[in-house]
């Protein structure tokens, strides 16, 4: 994305089923926000601006998962209008927490929440954007990390690869100087199978990683489950710990007892 004077690249932010936290991360870049706004033209970002400029867009950030028939079409339009499309957050990269519906019976869920489920039109799955259109880069996290978001935007502007390593949380954990909570406290931790990016926040707060960045590059879930089980974690808790915000991503999908719905 090369920008001569006067032609700033156009940035668009799109929302699908999500909590808004990932796009809020952009507004949370307090120190950089005005600079970003100067470097790119914010062409579509409904959380921040009523102005809506027509495409094509140089960079689209997409938040949220696909859960309705309408969104199945809308993501195609977004892709067609975007030179680069980057998905941000667990919803858009893995289906999000709402992908738990993929494991259970939708009608049952509907009736728990709504008195008159027939008013609703929704798909019975929540799926990541990459199931529907080609994606240029996936930024993980529930929510995404703000330094990483700036890094991705900066990398796209500079035409380089974002420095977003795919190794696990443990690498960050040790670089931060945390002793391992799994080894030292016997606290279950998903760090060894979870994608880095958060900076090993949970272990720094004496808590086990709960997997909000989804699976790392080569997750050995089976081996970790053995270790967790040996530490005394019952199978239903193993199941729960893998089935949160990235439940639908492989191989978390098959971890524990909760199997993918046939």
């Amino acid at each position, binding site marked *: 994305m090369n920008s001569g004077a006067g032609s700033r690249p156009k940035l668009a932010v799109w929302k699908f089923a999500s909590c808004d936290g990932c796009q809020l991360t952009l507004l949370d870049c307090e120190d950089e926000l005005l600079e970003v706004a100067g470097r790119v033209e914010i062409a579509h970002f409904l959380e921040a601006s009523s102005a809506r400029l027509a495409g094509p867009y140089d960079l689209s950030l997409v938040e949220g998962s696909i859960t309705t028939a309408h969104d199945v079409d809308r993501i195609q339009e977004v892709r067609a209008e975007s030179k680069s499309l980057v998905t941000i957050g667990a919803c858009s990269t893995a289906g999000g927490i709402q992908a738990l519906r993929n494991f259970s019976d939708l009608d049952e869920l509907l009736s728990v929440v709504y008195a008159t489920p027939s008013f609703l039109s929704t798909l019975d799955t929540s799926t990541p954007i990459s199931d529907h259109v080609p994606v240029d880069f996936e930024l993980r996290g529930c929510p995404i990390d703000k330094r990483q978001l700036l890094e991705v935007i900066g990398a796209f502007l500079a035409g380089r690869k974002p420095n977003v390593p795919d190794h696990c949380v443990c690498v960050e954990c040790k670089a931060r100087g945390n002793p391992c909570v799994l080894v030292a406290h016997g606290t279950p*931790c998903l*760090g060894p199978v979870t994608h880095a990016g958060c900076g090993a926040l949970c272990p720094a707060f004496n808590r086990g990683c709960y997997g909000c960045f989804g699976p790392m590059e080569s997750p050995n879930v089976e081996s970790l489950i053995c270790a967790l089980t040996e530490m005394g974690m019952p199978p239903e808790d193993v199941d729960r710990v893998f089935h949160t915000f990235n439940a639908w991503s492989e191989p978390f999908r098959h971890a524990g007892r909760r199997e993918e719905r046939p």
Partner: protein
Amino acid sequence: MAMMLSLDAVAALVDHLRNDGRKVIGPVLRNATISLDEIDGVDDLPAGWTEHQDGGSYRLERLDRPELFGHATPALPWKSWLYPPRTMLMRANRDNGSVTIEKPTPGAEPFAFFGIRSCDVHALDILDRVFLDPADPTYTARREKLFVVAATCARPGGTCFCVSMGTGPAPSIGYDIALTELWAGDRHEFLARAATDRGRALLGRLEGRAPTEADLAAADHLVGNATQNMGRQLDPTHPTAAAERYEHPQWEAVARRCLACANCTMVCPTCFCSTTEDTTDLSGAVSERWRRWDSCFALDFSFLAGAPVRSSTKSRYRQWLLHKLVTWHDQFGTSGCVGCGRCITWCPVGIDLTAEMTALALDPGGPS
């Protein structure tokens, strides 16, 4: 030069180091471990604490007397202070077709390592062979000013095997002052030996008495005990035997357990691998190059022409183990392992390199 120091004199030793403008790094209680951090004085040391270490497990335990050095290796390696997890390599400012390159001057605060064990001192010697030629500016600047106060290991951990590696338990090289903590009933003293001029000069500033034969014998006895009590061992002939067994079934077996999480490399006092990252500010005018710790367990580490060379966990573990114990000798004239046992303790699934090596060496394991 040897001298018997009281606890107060040891406290004064730390104070002198600090007053001389050094940051003193030493063992501290942190997050239910004996970890490392800057200390303000001997009060910050984990007096009366030890720990139980085993494959994949670490638990603090109380001692019945306030030993300063009653523990084994701290949870984290000392290397972080000489070779930080992240270092800026350079910054380039681009302006209208011209480029200026700034090289950061290594912030060379002088450090003192206090209470470092012999295995870890040997690890510094190994890192020297990596980073002193050609000289890494950050490492060199910090290393040259480092003051080393070593401590003799009295209670080796359950995963220690320095005796096998010839690196301990008594400090033998690379220290300015070595302390051996001695108890005679309730009398709590330290036998201090200085090995360098600055070590001798510093001892000269302390109050103490000359050691007696009995003191020296007690220190020897303590070392003898520690030598007998190693939690693990590694047969020095095994690495050579296993060196070319690339397709041994044991590699597959360990790969089923190995998480490729890199904890072993991160906590290892000699693992030195790094990668570089280029960052840009949003305007693109300022770019920086950073070096950060990397690990041979990361897929990206061996990325080449579209795919990692070492994509299986088997090949990554094999690279690590064979590098540590075999090819390190070819490269640096020493083993890459000092027997500190950290990689065993801190492996979340308790993979034990001594056990892996034994399995590889004892059974030819089919065609190699």
